[in-house]
């Protein structure tokens, strides 16, 4: 228990978790649709404001878990309610809490039917998502991880596009099937670890290498599907395309991060030897994802699909950063998780705004709106530049750090920088598909459809996009405070990793030659 800093004061994390749930219950009694919207906005905004207290109270010098709360839950099986925050999770929690009110605002006029249910789903999602990032008990983690599927399924299945049924069922089945073996892995850990589900207790144990490999594969399947990594990504375009705007934003900004968060929180510390042995494969899968995502995005005519495939590429960068296993790579990966959340979330909102006007996601029906929507395309331009990592925007910092990490990885192995070079085409492709989209939307060509009737975004929509732009520029120009938040935890993770590394570096080396 020495990894914990017990929080004896205000139980801020529990409040963050349960407040949205309470809000969802309250919605049951609200009859008016407008009141539902306002209530949800108030609850999510309050949670967002409250979560800022995490920053002011966060001690960046320690890698311990902070704001920890501990209660017993199921005594007979030693299952506890333990939650806490460290440098790896704090940014993701803030990302979640800050994006939710914007999702509510973005759905203000888009969702017209069954508003009450929609808002309740959003609030339940928020509870589950925050819970997944703070859970320090494996059962608690798993419960919330799975419970999230239901509201997300409903978000896609009820308010989705024409192929919503296919997309929602595919999403549910894929994710559930992936995490089933995770459950078996959890049970294995429990029995091996003297009947404990406490996550920090499971880290850095010397499990037999074969068991570690099985365990890593169980983790990998669950998390790689969620990320999604290259061969497991097929649910993502379907789900993204059919989901309503808020659903797409939540999926892209937060749900995908859970996979990469899982790698950092579980795979690395619990199965270090297996990580080193299997790392090469994961790295090359990441490269495959980066390039595959880029090329596929280039060929899309549906804007949402384009951004969905670009997500596959961007998340490939994140997994690349995680598995190069050095400080630059992992810090870059965490920062890139946040960046992707901001940028891609904003891009989905932008597409949603066009969709609300033209009722089409086709790129060709949105061509040439630049003349009539100057404010809109200003935002869009910034987010597109950010998406392909233009210097001065947030993604540049993240991708730069990741590629630097990849170079360092190659240098340590004392070889030509294959890995880093292999990821470069991804960055170029990103520029190609984003600029292509941007060009078409702003100027288009000689046969643009008549767009003169289109109205520019209103003040509510500006209020939705402005915070995203603020963070794009803040992280792009001054990322240090964000990196400071995670530094202690990441360096401790790598420190402890090095202790385990010596044993199996030979094995990894032989695989690489």
């Amino acid at each position, binding site marked *: 228990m020495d990894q914990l800093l017990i929080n004896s004061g205000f139980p801020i994390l529990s409040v963050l978790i349960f407040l949205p749930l309470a809000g969802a219950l309250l919605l049951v009694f609200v009859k008016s649709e407008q009141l539902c919207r306002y209530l949800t906005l108030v609850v999510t905004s309050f949670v967002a404001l409250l979560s800022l207290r995490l920053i002011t109270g966060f001690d960046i010098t320690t890698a311990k878990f902070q704001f920890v709360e501990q209660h017993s*839950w*199921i*005594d*007979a*099986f030693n299952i506890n309610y333990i939650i806490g925050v460290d440098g790896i999770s704090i940014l993701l929690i803030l990302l979640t809490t800050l994006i939710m009110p914007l999702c509510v605002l973005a759905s203000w006029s888009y969702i017209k039917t*069954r508003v009450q249910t929609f808002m309740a789903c959003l609030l339940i999602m928020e509870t589950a998502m925050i819970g997944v990032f703070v859970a320090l008990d494996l*059962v608690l983690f*798993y*419960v*919330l991880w*799975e*419970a999230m*599927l*239901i509201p997300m*399924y*409903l978000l896609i*299945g*009820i308010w989705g596009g024409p192929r*919503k*049924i296919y997309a*929602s*069922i595919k999403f*549910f*089945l894929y994710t*559930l*099937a992936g995490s*089933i*073996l995770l*459950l*078996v892995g959890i*049970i*294995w850990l*429990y*029995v091996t670890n003297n009947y404990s589900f406490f996550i920090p207790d499971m880290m850095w144990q010397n499990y037999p290498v074969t068991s570690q490999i099985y365990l890593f594969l169980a983790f990998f399947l669950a998390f790689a599907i969620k990320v999604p990594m290259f061969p497991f990504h097929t649910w993502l375009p379907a789900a993204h395309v059919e989901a309503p705007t808020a659903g797409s934003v939540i999926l892209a900004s937060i749900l995908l991060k859970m996979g990469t968060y899982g790698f950092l929180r579980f795979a690395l510390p619990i199965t270090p030897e297996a990580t080193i042995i299997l790392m090469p494969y994961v790295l090359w899968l990441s490269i495959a994802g980066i390039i595959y995502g880029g090329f596929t995005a280039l060929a899309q005519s549906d804007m949402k699909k384009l951004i969905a495939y670009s997500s596959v590429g961007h998340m490939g960068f994140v997994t690349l950063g995680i598995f190069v296993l050095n400080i630059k790579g992992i810090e870059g990966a965490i920062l890139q998780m946040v960046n992707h959340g901001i940028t891609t979330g904003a891009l989905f909102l932008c597409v949603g705004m066009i969709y609300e006007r033209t009722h089409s996601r086709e790129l060709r029906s949105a061509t040439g709106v630049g003349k009539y929507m100057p404010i809109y395309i200003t935002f869009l331009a910034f987010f597109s530049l950010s998406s392909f990592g233009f210097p001065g925007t947030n993604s540049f910092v993240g991708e730069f750090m990741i590629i630097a990490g990849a170079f360092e990885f190659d240098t340590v192995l004392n070889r030509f920088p294959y890995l880093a070079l292999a990821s470069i085409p991804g960055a170029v492709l990103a520029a190609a598909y984003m600029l292509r989209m941007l060009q078409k939307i702003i100027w288009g060509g000689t046969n643009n459809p008549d767009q003169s009737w289109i109205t520019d975004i209103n003040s509510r929509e500006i209020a939705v996009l402005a915070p995203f732009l603020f963070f794009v520029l803040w992280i792009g120009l001054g990322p240090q405070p964000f990196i400071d938040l995670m530094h202690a935890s990441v360096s401790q993770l790598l420190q402890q990793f090095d202790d385990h590394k010596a044993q199996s570096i030979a094995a990894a080396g032989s695989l690489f030659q």
Partner: protein
Amino acid sequence: MLFLPELTLLGVGLVFFFLSLGEPSRAKVKYFAVTLSALVVLVTLICIKSEGELFYQAYRIDFFSQLFKFFIALATFIVLVFSDQLVSVKEKVQAEYYLFLFTAVLGLMMLVSSVELLAIFVSLELSSFAVYIMVPMRNSVNNGGRQVEAGVKYLLFGVMATGFMLFGMSYLFGLTGSTQLFVIADKLNLTYAQPAAVVAIVLVLVGFFYKLALFPLHFWVPDVYEGAANETTAFIAAVPKLAAVALLIRVVTLINAEAEVIVNILVVCSLLSMFYGNLSALVQKDAKRLLGFSGIAHAGFILVGLLTLESTGYATAMYYIIGYVFMNLACFLVICTVSEKGRNVAIEDFTGLHKRAPLLAITLTVGLFALAGIPPFVGFSGKFLLLLGAFKQGHVLLVVLAALNTAIAIYYYLSIVRVTFCTDSENRGTIVSSRKSNILSILLIVIIIVMGVIPSKFIELTTTAVQAVM
């Protein structure tokens, strides 16, 4: 006082016997049935702490049996509350229907207290025969006489299973010279090397496998579920299974750890049950049939707890069956309410339910997701704890395959949810559910969630109960 719940049921049965002599109206019979079953729940609750032995130690009243009696009574009460007016049963035999229903409940309550082979046999037959008669009492207008086919199938399979069980019991008596379970347990420990002992135990288990609808004794399930009236199916799907699990726990305690053969047989039965149930459910169109196959799969899951041969496993199995009864009843509540004039409900009939009856749609969704084992509902915590116990005992392959089964199962549960929530009503009329069933819906949802979120209280309860048997 010890025999009070059973005596009350006997009295209730008599009331309906006298009612059946006249020609009472539906509403009157219904009113009697609900009130009296509420009384039975109350009585079982009062007697929950009583302990003792009756009838020359053939009949044991302990916390284990009393807890089961309470849940049997409660499940019956729930079924009676939501089976509105019982339109799907012939008007003429309304009173008789309840007479048999309460006799069946009486048999089941006696069953959970029986600790002697003959007593077990007699109470099992009492409950079974009453249910055999209830099945064909359905109004034949509703489905062209299929209820008779269902009734005959149910009867024939039941009689066959009982035959096997009797044969096994005779072996047990031959090996040990006693019909008392506790005496048998002691003496059997010495003779486990003999194949006869294994055969005897397995044959006795067959009788309860039949009640629980476990592979390979599941053949009656689809036809009986489909052929019987919706309310009867709800009863069959919930109440006898409780008693079956109670008796399985009693019989399984006879096995000691050396009897690896039996454990292996149970593992195989459990896996086949899950795979068979889940794979067959994938293609069903009729809601009751689908739930029947899902019930077969769940029976396999319950066996996962029993085959650990330790008290935690039994306690979780007990927790799971109680949870299962509530989830199942939540689904049947919706089926009975949605059904028009007692007809069978196809999955399509749930189209647009979210608009036609929002509360029912939510109840159905909660019930189905709970059955599928999605947190935070009771189905998840039950499955999780069962798998945990089995893993501890080293059944790794079983755990992995059982987990995979959850993934298969989600598809068919989800396809109902999809119809319920993601389709428009297409001019189907709204469904008016009575105030009683609305309250019951909310209550069931709350129970399913509470049991799932804070299982520790319930596990404590079932652990204490199981300790009474060990």
